[in-house]
């Protein structure tokens, strides 16, 4: 059956994720649509959702304003696969602390039990790319692009660690909920998007 994958189009690098997801779909030879979504009616139609990179405070506040935050949470609790990238992973978490500013009161989805630190590697000058590994999902080498990235210092008992960089957790998975601190849509490699689309396909069919 054809799958419909949405990219949350509030703020951030939406088009980049649409392109990566389209390439991934084509490479897998699967039947489906990749769409940008913003309003609850669009989100309710989805088989899977990508929450892209951007500013988590902006994405959170605006998706709260138009009611999409609530439906995203309901869909995830109902079993919809979701991939949260950088700001998207922050959105999936239950608490966000900033490395400098400390605890922040911002709208979150609260579907991943992780201890997360925003801007964990420092400011933009410290942003970097480096090879990382997601061995447990058969991606032994991946170009991780970290932009003012968060990291996870601890995970709840049901959360699987997919990848670490220098002892810091940078990718996590709980059931069909995936969070990455780095930006797979900026890498010249669709492996992670392919993994996610396969997950959606298996989950639906």
């Amino acid at each position, binding site marked *: 059956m054809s799958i419909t994958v949405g990219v949350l189009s509030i*703020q951030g690098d939406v088009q980049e994720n649409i392109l990566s997801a389209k390439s991934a779909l084509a490479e897998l030879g699967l039947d489906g649509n990749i769409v940008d979504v913003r309003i609850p009616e669009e989100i309710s139609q989805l088989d899977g959702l990508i929450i892209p990179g951007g*500013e988590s405070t902006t994405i959170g506040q605006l998706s709260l304003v138009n009611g999409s935050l609530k439906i995203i949470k309901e869909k995830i609790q109902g079993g919809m696969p979701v991939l949260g990238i950088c700001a998207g992973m922050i959105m999936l978490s239950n608490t966000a602390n900033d490395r400098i500013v400390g605890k922040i009161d911002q709208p979150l989805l609260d579907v991943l039990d992780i201890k997360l630190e925003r801007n964990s590697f420092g*400011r933009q000058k410290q942003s970097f*790319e480096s090879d990382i590994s997601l061995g447990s999902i058969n991606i032994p080498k991946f170009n991780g692009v970290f932009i003012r990235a968060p990291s996870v210092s601890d995970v709840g008992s049901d959360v699987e660690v997919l990848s670490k960089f220098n002892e810091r957790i940078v990718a996590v998975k709980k059931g069909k909920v995936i969070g990455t601190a780095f930006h797979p849509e900026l890498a010249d490699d669709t492996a992670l998007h392919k993994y996610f689309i396969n997950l959606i396909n298996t989950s639906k069919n």
Partner: protein
Amino acid sequence: MLPLSGERLDAKGIVSDKINSIDTLRGSSTVKRGFAHMLKNGVVMDVTTVEQAQIAEEAGAVSVMVLDKLPSEVRKAGGVARTASIRIIEEIMDSVTIPVMAKCRIGHVNEALVLQETDVDMIDESEVLTPADELRHIWKWDFTTPVVNGARSLAEALRRIEEGASMIRTKGEPGTGNVAEAIRHIKKVNDELRIIKSIYDSGDNQELVRIAREFKVSYDIVEQTAKLGRLPVVNFAAGGIATPADAAYLMSLGCDGIFVGSGIFNSDDAKERARAIVLATTFWNESDKVKEAQKMIDERQSMIGLDVSTLELRMQDRGGSA
């Protein structure tokens, strides 16, 4: 994946580090241009104090730009406008979680180095400040911190990208509350992109060479841009934006996001206006939402605009011929 047209792999701003024997790369085009991609569909707000920066963050701004004076005040004050006080930039960096940008003078390499050392997230080589070098912009490939430049035309935009700009914005006419110039600049860039794309599609390389010479840029960047049909970096609107409808209109013209200078903190309803402009930028193609945003502001509180044709100081012309 990012289009990395004009990328220079020998750039001095690229730093190879080893963190616990893991190879990492900072300041690469992917990392610098990628930062700008994270700002897309967002609003960057000019601020002069910690309080304004916090209002901006609460309103949903994706970043703040720290200045000593708002562009409209720079215009009134006259004299030489320089980069903001480092102490204020640092105070603001310590009090908000969103990225912090600051402006340096056109061509002033050491002001930019000071800002890089301060660890701002992006440097704006800006015509709002008094140019330090009318002939040469900064060679931005030497910087690990990404730099944004203003442009009034495709030629200016491509010249800045060849110098290493990681992001482009329109110049507009800063500090006027008059959006007409920003509209003119983005339409000109769009028209020129359409022209070079159609030339590329027709296979007329000789004409692309002629355009590269006219633009004073390399053939390669003209060809790569023509193939893409858009700028190879993120392109924001800036200069004179004062209302939610201004922001929505510029988004509809294909801008990737909005810089608001004097428009917010020079109005008498800054908090509401900041939220309203963010709302209109996010939901620019939903007319009911833009109307809702426009209703949040009071036109009687808007900054008093200036007619660009009678201005003594046209900031947009600064550095334009270089």
